[in-house]
């Protein structure tokens, strides 16, 4: 398992999850967990995904998701899980 955390932050609009999930499906990225809230009109989503079966390398996925985010007006960030794990778990 190769876990990556994808965060999506931006103004709420129709189809954000659909677009992100389509990209993930096309690239053989498996979603393990999704949580999402709307705070003061702002869409805030976190996905935990497994990139093990993906053919692209990490940087390419991060760039493509960022571009996808820009096209729908949200900020999409990809980070390997370890940074959160290290910081919040002993």
């Amino acid at each position: 398992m190769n876990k990556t955390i994808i965060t999506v932050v931006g103004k709420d609009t129709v189809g954000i999850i659909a677009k992100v999930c389509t990209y993930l499906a096309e690239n053989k990225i498996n979603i393990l967990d999704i949580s999402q809230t709307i705070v003061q009109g702002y869409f805030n989503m976190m996905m935990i995904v497994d990139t093990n079966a993906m053919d692209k390398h990490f940087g390419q996925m991060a760039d493509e998701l960022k571009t996808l985010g820009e096209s729908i007006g949200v900020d999409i960030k990809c980070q390997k899980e370890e940074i959160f794990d290290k910081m919040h778990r002993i």
Partner: protein
Amino acid sequence: MINLFEVVETNEMITKENLDVRTITLGISLLDCIDSDIQKLNEKIYKKIYDAAKDLVQTGEEISREFGIPIVNKRISVTPIALVGGAACRTIEDFASIAKTLDRVAHEVGVNFIGGYSALVSKGMTPADELLIRSIPLALSSTERVCSSVNLGSTKTGINMDAVKLMGEIIKETAEYTKEQDSLGCAKLVVFCNAPDDNPFMAGAFHGVTEADKIINVGVSGPGVVKTAISKVRGENFEVLCETIKKTAFKVTRVGQLVAQEASARLGVPFGIVDLSLAPTPAIGDSVADILCEIGLEYAGAPGTTAALALLNDQVKKGGVMASSYVGGLSGAFIPVSEDQGMINAVEAGALSIEKLEAMTCVCSVGLDMIAIPGDTKATTISGIIADEMAIGMVNQKTTAVRIIPVIGKGVGETVEFGGLLGYAPIMPVNQFSCDDFVNRGGRIPAPIHSFKN
């Protein structure tokens, strides 16, 4: 599994509170480059550093990208050049040629600083040590990225006052040599007492002779994160305050540990230490002085500052030590003036003097750092300031340092702009009374007694 709250907390630290890894520093031993032929020596040094560090910057950028954490600087530290060049260098120009080689390879591999143009003279100077020290003005004025440091004393050996006297003159000379750039050379020159072998921070980084052939040391930062955390416990007692700082320091240091382990694995170089530091930058919200204000002071320098800094420094260490498998370097809060907007504000408001800064250095990491003083300050006065700071380090068994910049052509009331991470600084007044006869005595101050502590 990680939850949304934790992810948001980490990312807010990075995006809003300037959490970053300040530096990955690759330490490289140059002892196996020693040669009596200066040209061969330079060639060997270039090759060894280039081969070891060619992937450093790219690896740093990859780690930064994958974890989403900025890694601000990638740097190199090398064996003190006085040891490496001793057999080959007969003139100051010979030593300066090594500085130029270091500068060239730093440009080639893309690191922004290379440290280790250094001499360790805490007890005495060899002819090579003295020659290197005398070459510092030439070396720093003819290079861009080379940093120089000199260890002048230690708790075990006392203080080498001959070298303290010489360094007062060398700092003035370096200021003169670089006066066209507001004496910038002095920002790349630091003197130490009890210099650590594994410090990743510039200008004082060098690769000690007790270290392995290559090593990865990482310096973390995060004053903004600590400030934000303690702003949430405003008005609470010291127990709550200290617990909050400790927990925050733990989180910040964990990121450093992760980056250090990753860099070590990817470069195939052993992991040395994480330096638990609060290193400010001139960016708004990235200030150690602001933490002191948040603790309850109107400005850094107000009564209570030394106590506030002492608790901050101690809690950062307590939180950080558990977060990392190996801790070393300088580890603590840095209090540079020009690199910290809150410090600059305190000086401009008249709240902070060199004397108060000296008191603060008794309880925190390093010492008098990035302080601009009038260009007409006498060399002996600079030596006196250095001697005071070295004495604090020697007696208290801690590292202390002086990085002071006599800005040629400028006086109190003017400001000096260094640019980038080095920031800008108002020129601070220096005590005008003479210490000539003290500095001119020559010789050594003996090591202090290690018992009867009062």
